[in-house]
């Protein structure tokens, strides 16, 4: 009998079957990988700050206090993270069907502008909130779903690659929405009384209730984001439609032979993905901004991709990943103020986190982690399984 060499092995040998089953079920490895990746990324970022003559401790301390330093900052961080949930879910849901939805930015813009347009209808002001809020939310979902549906249908009907269609539609949305909101002659959606190009405020009755008066305020938008994750989870794991989506993602050939309408699934998946993005946009408009300004939505689409990948396209993983993302951006202001280190350092740290999570072999090597072959942290995302 060979002696157990490490503590881990000894523990494992003395474990009962039940213990082992629990250990396999609650696999902490992926979480550990993310944590260790965060540590590594922060270290590298610190070195970068130090090289350029800054004080990394001072900078990170300011960043941390900017993120979670007070109840107000915590609320602000959560609020700042909220729109990322929807844009990440938009990416993740399409990924389940093997589609790469790079178009969340356009979907958010169209969803947001549709909601802002509906929200400024005069009669909506007299409608009680119980009806006004759903009307505006549905407008956002329809806008985002429509814009997401276009690449889906094109993919299904003509085979046009969804990555290209999405990039094109992003640009079309950016320019189109800019015209809608900026145009002075004719005035379409612009509020002429404002010096900055933006729409008029949406009806008071269509505002989402706000809980904490931080900047940005913590509102029901966060609850909507959590709700989206639950809907995602339910759709994907508890309905036959979700099963079909997963099958198409795993193997479209097999799905076809099993009698699944692959084209229908592809189109529908993109519509739903777009709806997630649209809903995220409208909750930002209705919960935080109360008017629509195109510039606000820049970058949400691409950060959403990173967050979805960080969460391994798991809907409940998206929540902490988005919180990490949004709170770091939220705290960057204080870091700039106190330590004179800009938001770019946060961007670098974020990209390194993603890098180390993706290349988990590096992390496993540095921290001597055992088990799981290299790259396994993200393989689940490829097979389209909810972890």
């Amino acid at each position: 009998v060979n002696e157990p060499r490490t503590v881990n092995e000894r523990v494992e040998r003395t474990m009962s079957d039940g213990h082992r089953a629990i250990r396999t079920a609650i696999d902490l490895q992926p979480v550990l990988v993310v944590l260790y990746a965060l540590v590594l990324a922060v270290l590298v970022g610190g070195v970068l700050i130090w090289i350029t003559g800054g004080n990394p401790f001072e900078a990170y301390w300011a960043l941390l206090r900017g993120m979670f330093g007070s109840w107000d900052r915590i609320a602000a961080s959560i609020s700042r993270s909220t729109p990322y949930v929807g844009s990440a879910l938009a990416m993740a849901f399409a990924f389940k069907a093997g589609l790469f939805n790079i178009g969340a930015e356009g979907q958010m813009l169209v969803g947001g502008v549709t909601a802002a347009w509906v929200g400024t209808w005069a009669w909506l002001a007299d409608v009680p909130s119980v009806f006004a809020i759903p009307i505006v939310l549905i407008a956002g979902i329809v806008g985002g779903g429509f814009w997401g549906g276009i690449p889906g249908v094109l993919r299904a009907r003509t085979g046009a690659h969804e990555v290209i269609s999405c990039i094109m539609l992003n640009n079309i949305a950016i320019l189109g929405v800019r015209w809608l909101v900026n145009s002075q002659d004719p005035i379409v959606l612009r509020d002429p009384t404002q010096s900055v190009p933006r729409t008029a405020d949406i009806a008071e009755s269509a505002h989402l209730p706000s809980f904490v008066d931080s900047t940005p305020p913590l509102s029901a938008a966060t609850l909507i984001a959590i709700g989206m994750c639950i809907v995602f989870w339910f759709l994907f794991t508890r309905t036959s439609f979700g099963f079909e989506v997963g099958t198409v993602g795993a193997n479209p050939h097999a799905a076809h032979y099993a009698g699944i309408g692959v084209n229908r699934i592809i189109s529908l998946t993109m519509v739903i993905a777009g709806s997630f993005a649209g809903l995220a946009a409208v909750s930002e408009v209705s919960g935080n901004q109360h008017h629509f300004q195109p510039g606000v939505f820049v970058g949400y689409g691409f950060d959403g991709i990173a967050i979805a990948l960080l969460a391994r396209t798991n809907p409940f993983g998206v929540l902490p990943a988005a919180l990490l993302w949004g709170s770091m951006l939220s705290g960057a202001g204080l870091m700039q103020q106190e330590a004179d280190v800009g938001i770019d350092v946060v961007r670098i740290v974020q990209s390194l986190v993603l890098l180390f999570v993706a290349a988990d072999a590096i992390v496993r090597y540095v921290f001597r982690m055992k088990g799981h072959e290299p790259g396994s942290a993200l393989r689940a995302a490829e097979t389209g399984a909810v972890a």
Partner: protein
Amino acid sequence: MTATVAIPSKTVITQRRFGRRRITSLSFAVLGLVLAVLVAPNLSGDDKSFAFERPPDPASITFDPPTLVTAIGILYMVLAVPAFLGARWDRVVVWAQAVSAALLVPLVLGRAHALSDASSTNVTNLLDESLVLCTPIALGAMTGLWSERSGIVNIGIEGMMLSAAGVGFMTYAVLGDGTATGWMWFSLVVAMLTGGLLGLLHAWLTVTFLINQIISGVVINLFALGLTGFLRSEVIVDTGVTSGKALPEFGIPLLEDIPVVGDQLFRGQPIFFLMLLTVFLTWLVVWHTPWGLRVRSSGEHPHAAETLGIDVIKIRYQAVVLGGLIAGLAGAWFSMEASAGFEDAMTNGTGFIALAAMIFGKWRPFPALAGALLFGFSRALGARLQFLGVEIAGFEIPSNFWQMLPFVVTLVVVAGAVGRAVPPAAEGIPYRRSR
């Protein structure tokens, strides 16, 4: 394109290639009819002219808009005929449609021109601008082509370009003060190496660590955004050099004196010429050398390639790094050729447009260049038509709509005319050597 997006073309979705062709031809015929019957008679008959060379004394063509539009309309109807003659005419149909598409250029210009008050438009600038603007797109497309032909998806082109632009200009500003010619060329090399280094990172992550190729691309894009922003605020701003001397324009002796074409094609800045060279060499090397065949076989069937003694891993490294070097050149175009200076996120999505151009060209160099030209032309056209102030039915077309043109055109082309783009078979699939 992606690992998981390998939707089969033959079995799942029925091929409608022939139908698509007929529909395209039919649309052109209908367009022709509308042009000849409805549009042409309503145009003013004043003579307009296109100038093709720089003033003074440019070569020019004078035309009368109704005649031009009618002629193109009738031509469209004639060119649509082969599509309905049977399978033997397939090749003719392809050419007829290509000619129809090309005729859109004089058509759009002629019509827009007829609607404006100006009596003459200098086409030189337009074509010049198209070629200039197509430079980074074509280079980016070559980056993607090299990488994807070897089996590695590359959506990090944007990040490679941006980093190269930033690091290149930083070198130029710090060492050459933004004016020294010698350092300028040195910085160009640094920019290329930056792109190559990121290519190496991409290869290392995807080939050695077998991580998802799209994730790696996203990492590179994010990293580039942070890195260049950091370098700009911490280094470039400190040097006080906000802009410098751009790469010089020069002409190729003799060739530049050819009327009309010479001025367009054989006068320009260095990266423009390097772009043309890169496209040509890509075609030559990838399709006409043994090494190119190895690259392509690594992307189509790596296991079969390995059986034949090809070191797939080495080939993929080489191809991706080479692609990175090309992206570095494209990055240098932004910060050293188009203008000497660096702004945050100055590549502004060009890397993704390049990706579109590559898929538009179905992973082939010259068609990809054509795709890049299409984007370059529509960008230039947008600016030009905006300048002419075109009105349709008393409604002045906003500039945003003109800028939208290339994206709409691509969407239509990718969905309709080009048909199903088939990527290299093994693209996006991590390759593991069997033991």
